[in-house]
């Protein structure tokens, strides 16, 4: 089972066993515009939920990406180095940022479901 949860800061996290992929949402990429660089963390770095985990650079600005849950970075999406626009093209798929080995998968229950996130985004415009 792979369920995706969402944060108010527009990150998504998708559980797969005791690891989870993290990226930014479709809404986030549309707000950022053209992504030109993603500054990814080093593998092995430990992050707490809410810590800065990556930085996404659009033409206009740099935006911090926060870890939706605590854990260790076990992989990063190296393909973004040569093709940062993948984040625009497929934000919630091929445009993932990093993979976390979760400290406590139960942390995800505090995050929004797809429907809750959709309702949240609707309140923003």
């Amino acid at each position: 089972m792979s369920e995706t949860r969402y944060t108010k800061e527009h990150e998504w996290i998708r559980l797969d066993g005791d690891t989870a992929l993290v990226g930014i949402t479709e809404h986030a990429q549309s707000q950022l515009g053209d992504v030109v660089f993603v500054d990814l963390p080093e593998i092995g770095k430990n992050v707490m939920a809410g810590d800065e985990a990556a930085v996404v650079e659009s033409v206009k600005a740099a935006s911090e990406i926060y870890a939706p849950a605590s854990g260790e970075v076990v992989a990063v999406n190296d393909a973004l180095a040569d093709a940062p626009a993948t984040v625009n093209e497929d934000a919630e798929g091929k445009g993932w940022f990093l993979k976390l080995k979760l400290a406590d998968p139960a942390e995800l229950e505090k995050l929004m479901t797809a429907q809750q996130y959709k309702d949240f985004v609707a309140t923003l415009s």
Partner: protein
Amino acid sequence: MSEAPAIETPLAHTPLHALHVARGARMVPFAGYEMPVQYADGIIAEHTHTREAAGLFDVSHMGQAFLVGPDHETAARALEALVPADIVNLAPGRQRYTQLTEANGGILDDLMVTRSAEPDEDGVLMLVVNAAGKEADYAHIAGALPANVRLIRADHRALIALQGPKAAAVLERHCAGAATMPFMTARSASFDGIDCHVSRSGYTGEDGYEISVKANRVRAIAERLLGHAEVKPIGLGARDSLRLEAGLCLYGHDIDTTTSPVEAALAWSIQKRRREEGGFPGSERVLAELRDGPHRLRVGVRPESRIPAREGAQIKSSDGAPIGKITSGGFGPSVGGPVAMGYVERAFAEPDTSIVLVVRDKDIPARVTALPFVPHRYYRGS
């Protein structure tokens, strides 16, 4: 992802606000106005379109005003008391870039000055100042004028820019003679019968025009220009990346009250007579910097990686000493990588000097680069 907090101050609209919204622009607060930062295609596509075809920019938020005296010499001398450019010798129908300077040589704002081409408008100068500073600029200028020279705001006028290699062919279809106007000239014109004032100038490094027209007629002109396949609307995002690649200063970032025109590498905008005579605010410092060289200089910077260096990033020498700061930086779509401008101590200002940028506590190798990053393509006449 972090977002800027919502700003609750009521924002002014330009006469093209409804057009931007109808064309799918994302509107953002800018200098007290709600302005389009980009349209649906996005900043990179808009930037590239402007370099390859033609882009239409709404710059109606900028301040337009007339300086009116009894004759050119009187109006020009009044303005020369505030700016380092030679205005007295500006020919009719010619335009010049200059700065409002402070007594300490800092820059209050930068502006374009045009001398009317009309024989019956001797003594009329047209000014275009930045949106953010216009109230302060007008107060500053009006407060320094002799009794026989007046500053008249032209708030009833809108301003649009048509920029790019196809701009001349497109404008010529509506405005006969536009295609043969040389860069930095201006004249009254008729756009399909609509009275306007056209200058061959811009803020992208490309050939192009700025068209000043009464606010109630600007939408008709904009819609007709956008009716051509070559022309797309361009937002402030691409305006910024275009001007950065062109090496052009953005007030409040690359120049401000702490930078002198010489430090800002704008000495070219101070003509010979003013260098000899001085007589503008801060001329003591500016003339000394022209003679002895400034302590620091604005330069182009090319990060040697894909990480953009933004405004505020520290610049260090290759042996780690702090030598300056980035004042504008981002991604240059035509360059295909990050580009920036900043100030460095003069000893490090030579193109190709190896420097180091500090981005998120990491050292990024970079090189001082001659400006512009993308060659200017102004039309200087045949």
